[in-house]
């Protein structure tokens, strides 16, 4: 079958691009480390004046710091690909890989929940305002979206945190939400055990951070959805569908939405980079123990081993998101397969 063959070929080409890009990110990261000021060995050896300098030389040999640039790059690639990412300067010298995987779970939970809500709400709002273009709902939702679209995430986080941790204007009925941490450590202990009340507590602590993260992106998604659908709604086949006597809902559901979706999927994937950036600010303000919080922490402690692999992880996440979006697009839209 020719179409399946071309489908495979397109996917294969994209896959090669993905691998190349990931390699590029890893190599760029190598040069970023080499631009950093300071001697990496200085952070590993104990700070003691009576310290034996031969150990320092031994360590230099062990970490291949005396080799040529090319050899160092080769060793670095080997270590990166075999997940030997070194140990943190702080944190009792925990493995960097271990730290990143632990923090990643919380970031994925936060980003996953907020993105799910974002996509559902954003598409619904955008579709409805495109459908009732120029109406009260359209004007209202578009202007509210534009207002929130340009709002700094950290500022929204501060304002929401204040709104839900105090009783504004003395309103006693106003709901109160936990504004920091990831579950109630005071009641359930510092060690995380997955029991039902703990899960409930985790969910309660997720409300504010994920809502903050969602507000800005809902605005973005609904604006894009609206403009993409408005584009499609002016096409001739929509007029034809209307002329056939289909109801408005049928036109929207079976003709406009399927054709308005592909640009949405591409843009949501592009947005992942911005969602990750937003998650950093949200985690920082709500003390949420994810990758973003760890990044700020690592910067304050100049903990470069963690920092450099956070860059790699962020880049790889975006590349993979874009690749998945591409595959989905090719699967959905037969026109891409042919061209």
């Amino acid at each position, binding site marked *: 079958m020719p179409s399946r063959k071309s489908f495979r070929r397109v996917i294969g080409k994209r896959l090669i691009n993905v691998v190349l890009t990931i390699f590029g990110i890893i190599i760029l990261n190598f040069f970023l480390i080499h631009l950093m000021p300071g001697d990496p060995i*200085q952070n590993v050896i104990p700070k003691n004046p009576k310290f034996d300098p031969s150990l320092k030389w031994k360590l230099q040999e062990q970490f291949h710091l005396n080799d040529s640039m090319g050899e160092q790059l080769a060793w670095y690639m080997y270590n990166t690909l075999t997940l030997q990412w070194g140990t943190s300067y702080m944190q009792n010298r925990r493995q960097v890989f271990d730290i990143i995987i632990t923090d990643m779970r919380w970031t994925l939970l936060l980003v996953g929940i907020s993105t799910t809500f974002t996509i559902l709400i954003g598409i619904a709002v955008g579709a409805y305002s495109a459908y009732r273009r120029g109406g009260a709902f359209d004007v209202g939702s578009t202007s509210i979206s534009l207002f929130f679209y340009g709002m700094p995430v950290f500022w929204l986080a501060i304002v929401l945190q204040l709104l839900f941790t105090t009783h504004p204007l003395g309103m006693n009925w106003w709901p109160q939400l936990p504004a920091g941490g990831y579950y109630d450590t005071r009641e359930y202990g510092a060690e995380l055990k997955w029991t039902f009340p703990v899960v409930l507590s985790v969910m309660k602590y997720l409300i504010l951070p994920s809502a903050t993260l969602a507000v800005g992106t809902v605005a973005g998604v609904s604006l894009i959805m609206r403009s993409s659908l408005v584009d499609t709604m002016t096409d001739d086949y929509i007029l034809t569908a209307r002329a056939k006597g289909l109801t408005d809902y049928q036109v929207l559901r079976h003709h406009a939405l399927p054709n308005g979706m592909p640009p949405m999927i591409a843009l949501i994937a592009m947005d992942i980079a911005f969602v*990750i950036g937003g998650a950093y600010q949200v985690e920082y303000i709500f003390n949420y123990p994810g990758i973003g919080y760890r990044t700020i922490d690592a910067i304050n402690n100049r903990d470069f081993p963690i920092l450099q692999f956070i860059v790699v992880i962020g880049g790889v996440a*975006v590349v993979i998101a874009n690749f998945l979006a591409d595959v989905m697009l090719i699967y959905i839209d037969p026109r891409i397969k042919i061209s």
Partner: protein
Amino acid sequence: MFSQNPSSRQSKGFGSGAAAILLVAVMLLLACASALAPLAADGAAPGQVVVGVISLAQDEPVANAGLQQNVTVGSTVMLNASLSTGFEGASGLNYTWYVDYRNFSDAATFSPFVDLYGVTATFIANQTGVYRANLTVKDSQNRTSYDELSIIVREKPPTWLESHLLAIILGAISGVILVWVLVFVTRRLVKGDPIISEAGREKAGLVRKRSMKVIRQLLKNPMGLIGIIILAVFIFIAAFGPLLAPYEVSQIHPENKIKLPSKDHIMGTDNFGKDIWSELLHGARTSMIVGVVSAMIASFLGAAVGLYSGYVGGWKDEVAMRLNDIVLSIPWLVLMIVIAAMIGEIDLTGIILIIGLTGWSTTARMVRAQVLSVRERQYIERARCIGASDLAIIRRHIFPNTFPLVFANTILTVAVSILSEATLSFLGFRPIGIVTWGTMLSFASDSSAFQIGLYWWILAPGFCIVLVVLGFTLLGYALDEILNPKLRHR
């Protein structure tokens, strides 16, 4: 030579073109002059007194060591922790200053320098590098609070060249434009040609006609109109705000810190005794400069990369686009944070360069797509047939066709750049020695402004950022709608 062109329509054609060029040059000169102003106030005298503030938020002590300081080597640094005014029952507080030190070349390690106890402590900064003063406050119930500040000790104050780098760059660009206009005019005068040739006049007339049409469409578009109104207000504030501001913001007034709003200070004062309303007015100018200049750098780089890779095509294009993908893939905030953390101490020029140099990849991708569609048109082929060089084709045919898109995109990039500056400042990478809305928010959040009662300190800069970003976004979208041929049919 004007006497040769008596017709009013023709001289108008000359007028709008020349006026546009002169306007750009004057704007750049203005930006350059305002870039001079904030930096000139930087560079502290030896023996700068460093002020620490302890405020009581919700009955808990909050340490606030204060602003990052620049001093010259050998100066005496006085660490002075004092209680902010208006809080009762703060007896039994216990202050500790702990100072550690690193030299400039070693970003990672701090070595202990001296332990100092008590409210006021003094030490002599006798080495170049960074001294980090850590302030710990403990109250009678053993509740503690901690903050740190960096004291950067340099050999000598930054040279004139260093502190005016941005102004020099902008001045040079505007100088080049002015000299270019002058040389152009004198050459024509010497040769005895009319200043404006027949073809040039016709072209200027067409350009004017088209730009008037765009402006008219923009004013009809509700998004564009609201955007222009918002931006006009904020450009006015950026231009004249610092003159209208009742107080100076480059000086620290320790005796005046953390005052609630009163008649003298309508929004109160911050932890350095600066008037918040004045800071807001000054911040408008710096925030706009950061946004506009870094967006211009990003657009210039993006347009250059996009034009090159789109025009040459082939493997060079492939390589350029893969590199672009790599930069685009790394989340933008992470990249900026890592670069800022590596540089360590950043000033106005530094933050502009960080934002400008990391933000070009989206523009590059968009310009490339447009170039690809323009490249195949027939007039390009014809130009090549009559022997036009690649550079001439790019300059005369391809660039003018992508310029509208680049322009609309630059406006949108300004919004993103202002947000980036605010975010970087908030996360602790504050440009030294200047006040922006981002640095205001950062200090306000560090000092728990809401609990103190200084609501404006957090709300006002935030609203300003939201409004300016909204203005640039609206204008950018409206321009995109008008100028982008793909969207025009709507």
